[in-house]
């Protein structure tokens, strides 16, 4: 009996040590391969981490589904009243010719781009789903410039890990990792269904991240910031930072 319990004790100790060091190695590897979400929220950290790690292993390069023209929703749903501020109205009255996109952070050439400059970049179109976390969705054709092209144009530095993107609406700011920021379907969109992007759908410039839920596709984008850390950003939201789900 004594012998048995000693054996049990030793086995237990070895198993615990192996388990703990195994976990530490796994955590280290997971961090190195970008499997740990930068914004975790206490009690929900296990779920956040499992979801993000699984998605990054499964979907780092996968392409969002694209649809035929016949699947485009008749009315691209406008979710709530449009954003209105004095400055936004002034810019809208001027046909958004004065709209500026500021880019700073870990880039070689920080500065601002006008809407005309953004439109002069090679444009791409995609017919993709916009799915809201509430449950509704619509399919539309989005036209814009792939975000990767803009980031390359301003000389993104190699230590970049995240992109923080802000709306003129002070309530909206979000961030994403480089797997989504450099993804070929992530657009700075300025066109919808062949026309200019309406204000109600996020005009004049909207982030489109089709592999995540609608709340990551922030409207009225006027600032991009490239960073290597999200400390101080996007941590207190009750919504999951990663919304590929």
């Amino acid at each position, binding site marked *: 009996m004594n012998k048995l319990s000693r054996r049990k004790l030793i086995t237990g100790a070895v198993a615990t040590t192996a388990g703990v060091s195994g976990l530490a190695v796994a955590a280290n590897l997971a961090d190195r391969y970008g499997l740990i979400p930068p914004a975790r929220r206490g009690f929900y950290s296990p779920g*956040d981490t499992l979801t993000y790690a699984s998605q990054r292993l499964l979907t780092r390069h996968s392409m969002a*589904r694209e649809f035929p023209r016949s699947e485009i929703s008749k009315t691209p749903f406008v979710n709530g009243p449009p954003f209105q501020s004095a400055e936004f109205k002034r810019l809208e009255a001027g046909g958004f010719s004065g709209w500026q996109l500021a880019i700073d952070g870990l880039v070689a050439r920080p500065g601002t781009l006008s809407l005309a400059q953004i439109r002069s970049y090679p444009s791409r179109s995609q017919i993709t789903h916009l799915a809201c976390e509430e449950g509704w*969705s619509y399919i539309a054709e989005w036209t814009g410039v792939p975000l990767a092209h803009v980031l390359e144009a301003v000389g993104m530095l190699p230590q970049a890990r995240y992109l923080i993107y802000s709306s003129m609406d002070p309530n909206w700011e979000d961030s994403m990792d480089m797997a989504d920021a450099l993804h070929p379907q992530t657009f700075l969109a300025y066109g919808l269904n062949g026309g200019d992007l309406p204000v109600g759908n996020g005009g004049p410039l909207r982030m489109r991240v089709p592999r995540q839920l609608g709340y990551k596709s922030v409207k009225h984008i006027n600032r991009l910031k490239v960073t290597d850390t999200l400390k101080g950003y996007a941590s207190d939201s009750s919504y999951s930072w990663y919304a590929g789900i």
Partner: protein
Amino acid sequence: MADSAWDPSLATDHVTTATAPRHTAVNRVTHWITALCFFALLVSGIEILISHPRFYWGEAGNSSTPPLFTIPIPASRATVPTGYSYVLPDQNGWSRSLHFQAAWGAVLTGLLYFIAGIVTGHFRRNLLPARGDLKWAALSNVIAGHLRFQNPGENESWSYNVLQRLAYLGVIFVLFPLIIWTGLAMSPAFVSAFPGSVTALGGQQSARTIHFFDCILLVLFLMVHVAMVIIAGFRSRMRAMITGRAGHR
């Protein structure tokens, strides 16, 4: 003791039952973790549903497209035309976080249960109905017994009857896998890697609608399950699922 009452098979049974629990430790632990996760998923799922109590078929659907059907309740978002003049408080933030955390808990627990069920022969021995029990005569006998509210025999605290077996198999191998599948089919990232998972269901909104009906079936199962536990003897059945000990034969 009269010799004529001596049944050796009963005696052997008695010896085994004294040592073997009614439910294995793995089954008891996974049962209660699943129960906890299911409760969390149900509450958070209802909260999420309240933000858009309309259902659609196909790929896309929203407040300006005709619904397949609506749940006649107020919504937690002002953009949903519900016919009510007020808007419920928005609880989606914590609800969504809890929903996915509990989903992970349920899936991982289910995986453990599934592997243990195959390794220990639980599915084959305790859940797979005997061929004879699936014959109509045998089935109708059990159904008639249920309809007459006959009390279960003593042997039923040690073994599942054919209706229980079919119900459990349906929940374990149809309803749970389907609700995980339809849940994943609503994930824009998951379907980017596995587009067939959503097109096979008829689209993302179809997946959401099936997810809802699957949940209704699971809640119906839960209600019957709890009612049966109460009718069969709440204390003895709860004791069997908590401690593993069942009543004496």
